[in-house]
């Protein structure tokens, strides 16, 4: 069996198939997870990678051998697995490697009610149990094959009022990932003319990487939106939990702008609500939340922090710069599809084009995330801190890496947990100010290279 330690990551299990992750490993993980949770039933789902179905079956065999009834939900998106775990109130396992290259696969786990399982909240225990030989239960669990897609689609459409939207032309790039399976069903009853790009489920990703945070993966969608005169373009990642948006001009919309838009909608529905945003989202997000009577709470980057803070603060919504959007009414889990429905509802309930609708939510100029390879993350960060400390009006904080801010600008420099990288994000009130600050910080970060 492969080396589990090398494939157990912060939020999931991920490795190359079959060298690091094969059916024996998946079966052992299934048995371990069933033992850890003690659950009477576990729902499983998988994406379209060629290895995913057999790995999900193997996971199920392991779980059933420990006495858990397995609800095998077949093909689906990660947020559909969260729906299953939430609606059925049972733990869940999703076989996917999200946007990673075809040779990878992985397993995301959640407890009943779609509660996250990370390295400190169960994954380490799963690893320890999977490395042992577990005695099978006296009575193995049963298997039930289950289709969650109709229930998932109905559930999402109940959360967002789309009853009065105008007819929209919507281009969707599924990147040969799971949105090709879910979008037709979710959009089925809506007044939408769908322009589908790469809806064929194909885990070899023949067209482009299923990772819309990289602008080159959005080019085909941008072109299709303009060519078909679409009102909006939507791009999903491989397991369709993240969603990116392109406006009617073919311009990429910042996830911060979407966070502000959805926050405003949630605040209109629930005045005074609490909204979570990570520290990389635009400063416009907390400003807009405050202006609309809400409470903005800033967190570290990463879904475990967002989900934990949302539950703690009973927040209605949370957004990240990475295109992850979390909803209280979706068990505090993230759903790109639900975010997309909010944008469609906002767009379709008024006459203006998307770019005009979103103008009010876009206030600053952002650099996007810029990675630099450094020899010593802490030393370089300290040098940058020193260079800015003492300047008039400048404040620093260390919620996640180093954030340096002043009236009209801020930047954050945070270390990667897995690579010797520093990740820089800069935002300022003008493009020129952003570029000057970005170049100044980059010169400090890269001076020893």
């Amino acid at each position: 069996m492969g080396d589990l330690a090398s494939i157990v990551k912060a939020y999931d299990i991920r490795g190359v198939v079959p060298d690091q992750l094969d059916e024996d490993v998946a079966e052992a993980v299934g048995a371990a997870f069933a033992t850890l949770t003690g659950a009477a039933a576990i729902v499983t789902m998988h994406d379209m990678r060629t290895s995913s179905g057999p790995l999900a079956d193997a996971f199920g065999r392991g779980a059933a051998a420990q006495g858990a009834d397995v609800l095998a939900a077949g093909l689906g998106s990660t947020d559909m697995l969260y729906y299953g775990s939430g609606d059925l109130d049972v733990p869940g396992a999703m076989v996917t490697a999200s946007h990673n290259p075809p040779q990878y696969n992985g397993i995301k786990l959640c407890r009943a009610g779609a509660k996250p399982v990370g390295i400190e909240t169960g994954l380490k225990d799963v690893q320890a149990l999977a490395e042992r030989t577990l005695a099978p239960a006296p009575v193995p669990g049963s298997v039930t094959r289950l289709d969650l897609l109709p229930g998932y689609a109905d559930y999402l459409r109940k959360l967002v009022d789309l009853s009065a939207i105008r007819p929209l032309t919507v281009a969707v790039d599924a990147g040969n990932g799971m949105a090709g399976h879910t979008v037709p069903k979710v959009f089925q009853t809506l007044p939408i003319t769908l322009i589908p790009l790469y809806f064929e489920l194909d885990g070899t990703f023949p067209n482009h990487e299923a990772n819309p945070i990289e602008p080159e993966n959005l080019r085909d969608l941008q072109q299709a939106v303009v060519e078909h005169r679409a009102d909006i373009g939507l791009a999903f990642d491989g397991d369709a939990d993240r969603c990116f948006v392109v406006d009617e001009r073919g311009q990429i919309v910042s996830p911060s702008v979407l966070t502000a838009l959805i926050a405003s909608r949630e605040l209109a529905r629930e005045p005074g609500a609490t909204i979570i945003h990570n520290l990389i989202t635009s400063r416009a997000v907390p400003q807009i939340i405050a202006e609309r009577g809400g409470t903005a709470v800033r967190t570290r980057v990463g879904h475990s922090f967002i989900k934990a803070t949302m539950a703690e603060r009973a927040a209605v919504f949370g957004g990240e710069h990475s295109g992850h959007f979390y909803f209280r009414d979706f068990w505090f889990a993230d759903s790109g599809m639900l975010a997309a429905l909010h944008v469609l509802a906002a767009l379709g309930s008024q006459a203006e084009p998307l770019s005009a609708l979103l103008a009010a939510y876009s206030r600053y100029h952002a650099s996007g995330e810029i990675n630099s390879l450094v020899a010593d993350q802490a030393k370089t960060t300290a040098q940058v801190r020193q260079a800015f400390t003492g300047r008039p009006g400048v404040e620093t904080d260390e919620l996640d890496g180093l954030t340096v801010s002043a009236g009209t600008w801020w930047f954050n420099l945070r270390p990667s947990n897995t690579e010797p990288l520093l990740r820089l994000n800069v935002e300022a009130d003008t493009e020129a100010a952003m570029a000057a600050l970005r170049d100044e910080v980059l010169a400090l970060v890269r001076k020893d290279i």
Partner: protein
Amino acid sequence: MLIEGWLLDILACPQCHAPLRTDEDASELVCTSDTCGLAYPVHDDIPWLLVEEARRPGDRT
């Protein structure tokens, strides 16, 4: 027994979300909604709660 009682309680018809009942004679799990009523087969002790596998009420295959 087609399915354990507690499992039947948490599962629902995939099409309309109404509760399911067992039909031991037909070896099916049947949606209890009057407007839906889809009947789902059980093959080799595995219930198939898949809409495309379901039998419509009145159709005998």
